[in-house]
């Protein structure tokens, strides 16, 4: 920040302060005191700022000087107006409109809100829709074939351990990820495929601040001729920059998922602009697992893996919502405390949870 900006900022806040003080003044005597405090030649605070113009580099002086004159005129005008108002009307607000107290609050309805995780899913969906994706869905109770085997995850491979599965009878299970919908969709539709799959998934996790046994996931899949690692990176980097802002840095780290190869974890480093205008970068935060679709997956779905290539990704909107809204414990998403949910209605007055219900 240059010294010039600082001076202009100071002038602006002085102006706001002066106007507020004038509005609050009830007597001509107060007005005179305010005139001396802000506009006085010797001790006036605006004059004080004007004297500091000399500290600025010569090229910055005209802009700051102009601003100082503008503020001086504005405060002067407000002072005159207030003086006149006090002389004429005594300054008290009258009940206007025939005795009705118009300061009473208006009649309102209850505020509804989408669940915060839904809001994040909506935002993600909006971005992918504009990148040519459609939404697909599949069952939440699944077979081992769709959840594991067709996704190139043999049940006797250690990779199957990493998702602690909730089983039903007959080797059926609750899907541990939305990836089975990749197979189901490719079985039903010919390429090209460009889908995202929001939906509930399940793991045998004991609930804590970062785990719930049921949680939302969003899967993505794009398969066509000629889709490469470059398209994969480009699409997800584009998504990340649209979601977290254009300055966001995106990093692709090698990883392992049985159904993609090469596989990557995608990290973002966000740029945060504070209220005081300063800019900082966050740490790298992992936001999704992704990669090029493994040819075995395409074959299991009946696609010609020599001809078609593609990429897939999966992310957790609850985790992203927790990051975005600063929620320390994701169990809150399932508690559905009214005071929590109302904070996401978009009405800033409802942000304070102490407002009566």
């Amino acid at each position, binding site marked *: 920040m240059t010294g010039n900006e600082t001076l202009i900022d100071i002038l602006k806040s002085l102006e706001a302060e002066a106007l507020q003080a004038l509005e609050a003044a009830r007597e001509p005597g107060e007005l005179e005191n305010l005139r001396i405090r802000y506009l006085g030649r010797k001790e006036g605070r605006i004059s004080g700022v004007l004297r500091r113009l000399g500290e600025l580099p010569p090229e910055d002086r005209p802009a700051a000087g102009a601003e100082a004159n503008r503020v001086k005129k504005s405060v002067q005008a407000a002072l005159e107006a207030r003086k006149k108002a006090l002389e004429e009307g005594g300054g008290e607000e009258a009940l206007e409109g025939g005795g009705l107290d118009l300061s009473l609050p208006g*009649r*309102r*309805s*209850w*505020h*509804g*809100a*989408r*669940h915060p*995780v*839904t809001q994040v899913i*909506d935002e993600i969906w909006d971005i992918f829709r504009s990148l*040519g994706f459609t*939404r697909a*869905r599949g069952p*939440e*109770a699944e077979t081992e074939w769709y959840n594991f085997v067709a996704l190139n995850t043999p049940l*006797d491979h*250690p990779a199957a*351990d990493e998702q602690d599965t*909730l*089983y*039903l*009878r*007959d080797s059926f299970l*609750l899907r541990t990820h939305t990836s089975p919908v990749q197979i189901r969709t490719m079985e039903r539709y*010919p*390429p*090209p495929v460009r889908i995202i799959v929001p939906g509930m998934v399940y793991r*045998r996790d*004991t*609930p804590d601040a970062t785990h719930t*046994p049921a949680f939302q996931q969003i899967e993505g899949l*794009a398969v*066509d001729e000629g889709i*490469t*690692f*470059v*398209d994969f*990176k480009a699409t997800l*980097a584009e998504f990340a920059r649209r979601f977290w802002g254009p300055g966001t840095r*995106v990093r*692709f*780290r*090698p*990883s*392992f998922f049985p159904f993609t*190869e*090469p596989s*990557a974890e995608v990290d973002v480093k966000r740029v945060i602009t504070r209220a005081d205008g300063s800019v900082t970068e966050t740490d790298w935060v992992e936001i999704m697992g992704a990669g*090029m679709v493994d*040819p075995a997956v395409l074959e299991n779905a009946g696609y010609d893996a020599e001809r078609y*290539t593609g990429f897939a990704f999966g992310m957790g909107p609850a985790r992203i919502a927790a990051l975005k809204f600063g929620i320390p414990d994701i169990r809150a*998403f*399932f508690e*559905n*405390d*009214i005071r929590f*949910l109302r904070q996401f209605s978009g009405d800033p007055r409802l942000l304070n949870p102490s407002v009566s*219900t």
Partner: protein
Amino acid sequence: MNISYRWLQALRPDLTLSPVETAEVLALRGAPVEEILPASSGLQGLVVGRVEEVHGHPDADRLWVCRVDVGDAGETKPLQVVCGAPNVRSGGLYPFAPVGAVLPGGLEVGRASIRGVESQGMLCSEAELDLGPDAAGLLELEGEPEPGTTLARALGLDDWLLDVEVTANRGDLLSHLGVARELPPPGEDAGARGVDVSAEPGEEPLPAIPGATSFRPTLETDGEEVSSEGVRIRIQDPDLCSRYLGAVIRGVTVGPSPAWLANRLRAAGARPINNVVDATNYVLLELGQPLHAFDLDRLEESTVVVRRARQGEPLRTLDGEDRSLTSEMLAICDASRPVAIAGVMGGEDSEVSDETTDLLLECALFEPKSVRATRSALGMSTDASYRFERGVDPAGMERALTRAVEIIQATGGGTPEDVVLDVCPGPWQGLRVPLRPSRVEAVLGVAMGPVELEELLSPMGFRVLGSEGDTLDVSVPGFRSYDVRREVDLIEEVARSYGFDRFPEDLGAFRPGTVPDDSLFRLEDELRDLLVGEGLLEAQVAPFAPDREGEVALSNPVNVEEGFLRTRLLPGLFRRAEFNFARGIRNIRLFTLGTVFFRGAPGELPREEIRLGLILTGDRHPLHWADESPKADLWDVKGFLELLLFGARLGEATIQEGAPKEATGGQIVPGRGFSVTDGDGRLVGWGGEVDEGVVDAPAWADPLFGVELILPDPPPAPPTPLFEEPPAFPGVDRDLALLIPGDLPARKVEQVIRGAAGPLLVDLLVFDLYEGKGVPTGMRSVAFRLRYQSRERTLTDRAVDDSVVAVMDRLREELGVKPRE
């Protein structure tokens, strides 16, 4: 995987990266480091103390009063310390904890008076420092460290422990050598180019073993059975064990490991036990090859047979557990009985002990799936099984075995037999995978020629042996032979070596897909908009339910109280109401969209439905100073049902009085519920006042109302509105106040009015209901407003009067209903 930074340095003397930089490089190569800990984290403030004088305690036989030199670490010099250890001697060097230090077990050392003699600190045993099991005496420090030296430094623990997260495909990273191979040569851009292990894979130089002589055995190899010097090894089930190497060492002294070995293990987070076990653990941690040492004298007929166990064969394993083996488990047996579970854990009886002199050292390769099945059937996981499951380098076995022999000999003496028994039914043949540069470009989007591909692959241990046409013939090193088996696996290695960050991010053109946007998602979106607009908050409710509310059971629920999947949404919302009531919240308006599950046909998946649930209680509107404050009631429920009929695209559906018990689980108050049936007569929704007994509500709570709706799947397309010219002529309203018997539904009256009024009636609504004074008992006065309108002309009073008369006649005739006078 716990990796010692100093051990990495020993394997890669060229390593110039700091621990933090090492972690950053590993992250970019697919092995992120979860945390970096100083290896000596429990030893803060502890130093080396030298005992200068030892005197007997004046008042206790078994205590000693020592003068201890602790360098600059003490307040006075030397310090006086009372000690009970039998091995304390003048001139000895021991760990010293000054007053104020906290031992690993949490004990804070205080200034103490022991039987009248002041003690200014504490001399420590191995056990007290959590460095090993020995609690009998003080830990004797080797290597003449200066008094006052930090204990961490004296123990070689001035190190960092890197907790490396290893993915399931990379068994080769479960060793220090494997991690060292991933590190780039000095000066190379960390993320970009691969390692430069210039030696052939598997022949990298290893750190020297102090005092070791090189062991160069002769291999006696056979596919089934080998005997030498009275020791016999036989593989009976070659499908589960492709190779078994056995080395014999005679005359070994088993005892504590020397400091370098014990410290190295500690630095990698392992506990030293004795020199033989420590040697096998050292090799496991360094090279990734699990080894097992048998007390040769405990093996009947000095024989090892590798075979499937007999059903029910017993074995007490090293952890003291009695195990019953099955015929699917591979066992290491002597002439008669199992002595180890192959690749999982050894038996207690043949374990190396202080009396052991002759050893059989096993270095074998077991089939990963069999080890996995065995250890999971036994409910255990060991360092060995973890590595066998993920794949152990088939080309690294001989080196691992000879290294262990060298360490044992260097630390425990003895004489290894020159002949190593090598039963090898499935020798490692090497693995070759074809790679087409055209395919690399098709997958990665960047063109790379054969030379560049070779440059990228060879630092990672792959070799291009030749080419046929455009296809390269690539050999895979043994340590990658489990996860690099196909062309696409090599392509991933190319991408990793090239560096993911170097690929461009140009968003190219794309074709639209063939998959239509799912219409149920769209319907859900519309319903959210509708209900949020009505002031409802969306809730998210997990589908787990107690058994009385579910049909589909979980085999392994997280919480046994919720071992089923829900068949209805409302009970979950009722619990959310209770949660909010318990927090003093009285106005609750929630909805949720979610799946319910029903038993499927035999052999079929459960049947799923997507449903909408909502609950209401409390004030209908936020309190306002100008209004009365009505509570939500049954008419809100019916209003929501009416709203949702078209909102949920149930166009043909109708609302009936009464909610069937089977659907609501009896949770709706009888006579205060509604049901919705679709065009086919199928029940698709219900709602009403929730029975008091269902919800644990405080006394101040208002009545609770609920609605549940089955969404059509797939939903029908919303109807397209057809334009109709608004009428050009004014309409006429007539109000009729009718006396209706209490048991006659208003809907019947409405039907008669509509039937009798003729085509000019365009709208009909109830605008008042009155019971009480002026109305006979058992009757209600219901006021209807009838709107008449014509598209052709302005209506005359006469025409409207005629219709009203007809309506009244029909009401009287059919229902006995009369106007209220």
